[in-house]
């Protein structure tokens, strides 16, 4: 099995790509996808740490399962909000939504 640090490097890379996506992409759906990447990085971290440091306990595994569930709930609400803004503006780019200053 590959050593722990390899998993951590993959997770850190995914997290960085996700952060870059949130900061650089303008499309609301692309930002949402980037956030999902970051959450997946978290899950890789959790499961890898669980396997290598505390495989006898169930807490890391349970944590990862909860992250899945809550990420799904978040995505559901987020997509609903994006659809509702698309209906009024025909655009999903937050910067173009400028009814509010700033």
């Amino acid at each position, binding site marked *: 099995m590959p050593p722990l640090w390899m998993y*951590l490097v993959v*997770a850190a890379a995914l*997290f960085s790509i*996700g*952060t870059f996506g*949130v900061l650089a992409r303008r499309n*609301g759906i692309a*930002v*949402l996808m980037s*956030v999902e990447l*970051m*959450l997946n*990085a*978290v899950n890789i*971290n*959790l499961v*890898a*740490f*669980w396997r290598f*440091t*505390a495989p006898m*306990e169930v*807490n*890391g595994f*349970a*944590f990862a399962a*909860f*992250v899945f569930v*809550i990420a799904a*709930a*978040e995505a559901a*609400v*987020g997509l*609903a*909000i*994006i659809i*509702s*803004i698309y*209906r*009024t*503006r025909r655009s999903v780019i*937050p910067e173009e*939504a*400028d*009814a*509010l*200053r*700033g």
Partner: protein
Amino acid sequence: MPTATEFNFLESIASIAPVVGLTVMAVVILLLDAYLGAQHRRGIAYVASFGTAAVAFTPFIWPPVEQTVFWGGTIVYDGVTQIFQVMVCLAGAIACLMAIDDRGTRNRGEYHLIVVISTLGACLLVAANDLIMIFIALETVSIPLYILASFQRKSERSAESGLKYFLFGSFASAILLFGFSLLFGFSGQTNIALIAEALVRGDIVGDTLPPVVIALTMVLVGFGFKVSVVPFHFWTPDVYEGAPTPVTAFVSVASKAASFALLLRFLVVVFPQSLVLQGQEMQAIWVNLVAIAAVLSMIIGNVLALRQSNLKRLLAYSSIAQAGYALVGVAALQSGDPTYGVSSTAFYLFMYTFSNLLIFAGIVLFTEATGSEEIRDLAGLQRRSPMLALAMTISLLSLAGIPPAAGFFGKFFLFQAAVNSNLTGLAMIGVLTSIVALYYYLIVVKVMWVDPGQDEDKPIAIGAPYGWALAISSVVVLFLGVIPSQIIDWARAGAEAIQIALRTGLL
């Protein structure tokens, strides 16, 4: 240690009584809303409001006992949990009252359901003692708030507010969670007290500093977004301005108070004074980071508030500055004895919650009567509705920190705590920036009482629910300003419980 005590069902249930109560309420409101139909919406609002207010009394019926950790170490129920649970439940109750006649929220019964669920999350958050529980509770607070911010689906401003809140909020959660995953990895534990023990013993990371600092920074960045402190504040003005006013009121108090409660407990327990890595005290690192964020928030929040003409936007910048003041109390935890820092922050948030609810209830009434949120349109308010002008003035005086309103003692206790823990510079900056803040709060007071308005002959009627909301909040704000000892003693007792638990290893 969670395993050392036997499972006592009655005490365990009592420790989560507010959460149980709010869950039952959520189901009841859902059924009422589904079966009663449109003509009973006001009744549902009253049920939600009085129910949530009743839940606020459960922490008095079952006060904290000697054992503070329940449910396998995931829930901690002590004096600090108690005071914050009362705070967020009352905030939820007043937010339900405020929504009854607001044009953005009055036509939809599910508003109350979502507020109750968010309050439930906040009650759980202030009691959370485990990384998994913290994360679940934080999302139970936040996800309903994203829905509430975009509640007026037809309105561009509300939808935009919801989108921005959602994108920044979920980004912040992801950063926070990455920090949590690192902390889990460095200790192999999810219970925050056990994490601290493992870090102090150096089980996995040994004596290396950088990884722990990275985890700490990510957690602080995540919380920084949630409580909107500079440099993570930029979503706040847009979200506060665009969301329906009752929602703005709830977002600005409940999620903020609950996040602060958690931040206090998290920093005290996970990074205690005894945690020294490579000769560097972890506590000194986070106190410095928190102090920098506090200074930036106090200065930038207050200065940017000076040039606002929209009342809700003004209050958004004001709330950034207020979060900065509350962070002064968090930084004051460095003295080693958390009593002063925790109790002054709890008192400050108590007074901030009611002052903010008071002014937002006033804004709802004013906006319903005039359709405007501009400060200049408040002119002549004292002749249109003297009671409304009086209530809003009490709130502004409290936010500015002028006696006899509660804000004076709030700031007094905070700066006292800062001086006690050798942060005199921070207290000085706090005093100086609150003089700047005085200017923009008093401008609003002046417009209400002195400036002549065009519609002075059109009085603004105060409906019964708003009368209640304004009266209760005003009484609390004045009571705290005249007799602060009740609440501050309560908060100190709670903080001492944390201190004792830390020393004896009960957590």
